């Protein structure tokens, strides 16, 4: 099969070296495709110029949905559909509805946010990710640069990676 995507892949051992390398390469105008790490490297998303995730907003919206649904459900069921006086108390009043409302808020916020995370990250059980180096889940940080997106030549990119502390520079075609 003819491959149509050519990548230069730099392997890094240390997260601090990697962070410097990302900053330096971006300063030199290198467009980085993506960096793969075995653990979350703090500051890497800023170094790569990624915006902050909007998932907290999704969580808030799902949570508010949970709050409204829970209140609607309880007031409709006990206040309208089948009003019942239990223990001589009002059949529909807010205080006893607070626990269930809180729980449903948390439930919908958590599930909604995690579901959104899977969708936006395109993660599903039957998907196999494109892997530049299998060691990226073990002990190496992997920086992938798409040749088609960069004006610099293969050798120039390799030398930038090398001079910034990459322990190996490989080529990968998909």
């Amino acid at each position, binding site marked *: 099969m003819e491959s149509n995507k050519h990548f230069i892949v730099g392997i890094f051992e240390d997260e601090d070296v990697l962070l410097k390398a990302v900053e330096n390469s971006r300063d030199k105008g290198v467009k980085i495709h993506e960096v793969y790490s075995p653990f979350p490297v703090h500051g890497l998303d800023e170094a790569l110029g990624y915006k902050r995730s909007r998932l907290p907003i999704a969580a808030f919206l799902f949570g508010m949905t949970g709050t409204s649904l829970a209140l609607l459900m309880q007031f409709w069921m006990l206040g309208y559909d089948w009003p019942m006086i239990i223990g001589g108390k009002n059949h529909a009043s807010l205080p006893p509805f607070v626990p269930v409302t809180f729980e449903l808020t948390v*439930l919908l916020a958590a599930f909604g946010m995690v579901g959104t995370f899977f969708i936006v990250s395109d993660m599903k059980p039957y998907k196999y990710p494109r892997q530049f180096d299998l060691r990226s889940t073990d002990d190496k940080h992997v920086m992938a640069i798409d040749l088609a997106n960069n004006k610099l030549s293969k050798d120039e990119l390799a030398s930038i990676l090398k001079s910034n502390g990459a322990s190996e520079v490989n080529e990968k075609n998909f």
Partner: protein
Amino acid sequence: MQVTSSIREPLITGGKTMRDVSEDISRQVEGKPTGLWWIAMLISLSLLGFGFYCLCFLLWEGVGVWGLNKTVGWAWDITNFVWWVGIGHAGTLISAILLLFRQKWRMSINRAAEAMTIFAVICAATFPFAHMGRLWLGFYWVFPLPNTWGSLWANFNSPLLWDVFAISTYFSVSLVFWYMGLIPDFAVIRDRAVRQGNKLRAQIYNALSFGWDGAARTWSRYESVALILAGLSTPLVLSVHTIVSMDFATSVIPGWHTTIFPPYFVAGAIFSGFAMVLTLLLVTRKVFKLEDYITIYHVELMNMIIIITGSIVGIAYITEFFIAWYGQVPAEQYAFFNRMQGPYWWAYWSMMTCNVISPQLFWFKKIRTNLVATFVLSIIVNIGMWFERFVIIVTSLHRDYVPSSWSMFHPTIYDMGEYIFTFGLFFTAFFLFAKFFPVVNMAEVKSILKSSSERKH
């Protein structure tokens, strides 16, 4: 640049590299189970089998096979329920609250503690279901589902229904939180399997990892999901035992009708939960040789939490007595006097000894850094916490308002069988987890190797 105080003890010892972490933790998933594992599994399965027989007999015959009577209508079932729910609390405390407080020592123990939470909540849930008798109708009674009575809905004014929502939300959210943590580690095992040429394992663990790629963008989103989940789980875990305590506190039974219950139950839950975490982890670290990941320092920190929460529980006991005396309500005074000197004095004094006196031994550094002492004390604490629930529930009920209906509770083999069932379930689930899932969070441990480990130079 990361600066770490030199006073802090290392969290990971043995000069581990990232490769060592993957190797040490994945090994037990990849290898064949040891003889010790089979023995442990066999014991758990036989407990489960015996308990399952008792459970089936209960469902066949009805709740009458338990030792309940008209006066004591709630005994071991609710005691065990509250006990198991309480045990679950430590897992969420470790993974959520310690994450919000940025406590790095949570990282090598959170996975196993969260697994413990999930299994403990499953065990807890079996008791209310068993107590329903007609299990198959249970869903109509506890969830607001349309039904043949013209949609007679569940009663949202009842703390028992709040409990249903609290426990099911707690279980689902803890499960999601735990699974999110597992995803990057499943990918580690997948990639190792690819390199080892084990196609089947690679496919299974890829499916489990949802095709995790470890990209910086995914990690960035993942981190914000973890933070928000921690933020949601923190009030959630506090709400769960608060609502469990309301099962009692909103009633008018002397001994239950106290406003101190919610904080007192939450502290007790964390207290017993940490004891169970210690019991499990001391065994796990030995069996899976995780001494470099779960160090004496971790054990010591957990023992410190046991001192704090144990002392809160002790103060709560004393406060209850003070308020009973100070409140001048004869029924309330009698209830507390009866606890101390009535026919269940032995349960009361076991509770006091195990929960208030024994954890104070952890003030001595020699004791809290001694593994055998910690193991023994962790079991004593859990016995004490079981007695606490038994004392609250049974001693408050067995002296009714009318002396002619006073009675005692005598457990039958089926009461014990149900409890044994949950032990079987809990340990079977935990051993399966320990064999097939990575017991330590590799990604998180790798992230602190540079700052908090003992490194070879």
